[in-house]
């Protein structure tokens, strides 16, 4: 349900209750696509977790210029932080694609299929999980 349909319905609507109902369906379709429904709240949580990793990565970039002058213990701590982010990402990403795959198999949802293909990068992450950790 797109904006144009809503605009047309608003113009042609004769009953206000119908208009409210139509707007609710419009809002619901957006909510579904944004993974705001309770039944896919876990997906949303995983996505948020991965998105927040960019902030942690940024803090590592902030420290990186002075990396050469840091002590051994600090370097180990930084590397441990890096490994932790990578592990978190791989686990979250794997769980995300697995859950998405299960949902898509149970019910045909084109938008989630689309998201799965995009995020799984043509099954790259299925076969190459933890690749960064090994390096």
């Amino acid at each position, binding site marked *: *349900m*797109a*904006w*144009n349909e809503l*605009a047309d319905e*608003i*113009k042609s*609507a004769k009953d*206000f209750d119908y*208009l*409210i109902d139509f*707007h*609710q369906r*419009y*809002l619901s*379709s*957006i*909510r579904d*696509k*944004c*993974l*705001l429904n309770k039944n896919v709240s876990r997906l*949303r949580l995983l*996505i*948020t977790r*991965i*998105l*927040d*990793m*960019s*902030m942690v*990565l*940024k803090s*590592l*970039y*902030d420290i*990186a*210029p*002075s*990396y*050469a*002058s840091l002590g051994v213990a600090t*370097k180990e701590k*930084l*590397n441990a932080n*890096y490994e932790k*982010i*990578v592990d978190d*990402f791989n686990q979250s*990403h794997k769980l995300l694609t697995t859950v998405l795959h299960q949902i898509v198999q149970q019910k045909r949802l084109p*938008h989630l299929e*689309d*998201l799965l293909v*995009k*995020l799984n*990068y043509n099954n790259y992450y299925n076969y190459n999980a933890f690749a*960064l950790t090994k*390096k």
Partner: protein
Amino acid sequence: MLQESINEDKSVPFTDLILIQLVNPTLSQSSVNKTRVNQTHLSGNATIDVNVNQTFMSSQSVAPFVHNDVPVTPNHRDHDTMDGDEVFIKNLNDTDKIRLSYRVSSSMIRRIGANSVQVSFPLDILLSPDDIAEYNNIMSFIFRIKRSKFVLDQLLFIHKETTGLTELKVKSASVNVTKGKNDMTPAQRDMKTFYHKLNLLRGTLIHFVNNLQHYVATRVGDRLIPITKHLTSCVSGRRNGVERVGR
């Protein structure tokens, strides 16, 4: 009573009024002009606000959901608010702007709540407080994606500024990368390895965020972008009527 108030202004049909209000609950010609001024002003500053607004969410589509609630870092004296919906960031160098933008975006996401928008008539009939909360949740999600993308994009520039494009400038020990690995000290090699690992992770994260953003832009954005487009046509077609109603 409702019907009487609707029929008072024949020049603006009730349905059009709802459309206009849906596009921007606080719409008036002056506010639209003000938004344009804000965009022009902010375009000179590398802040998250500009980056958020310029891609698939224009300031017009964002404005209803952050109206009068544009976050300001309270302890930062370089922030000014004008009329409650403008943020000016002045006299800051690039690094400060980037760091400030992280705080602004974080604060923005936190402060987008159900109470941030007051819907005026007649949109308040169509949009319940729960609906506004839903819109805010959607916008919050989109803001979060845009913030992550902005941070990851800026990391490349921070990296380049720090290391230089061809030369690796380190305060502790200056060394030319072009000399090759064998000419580097172990500490410098460690640092290069660390940067390499960070760049790998950055690439992985940016792939995820870019794809997620593309998903939202194609699956959700097509439902939200027309709000902005419709705003222009509504404003140009019904400007006089809207101004009259606004009085």
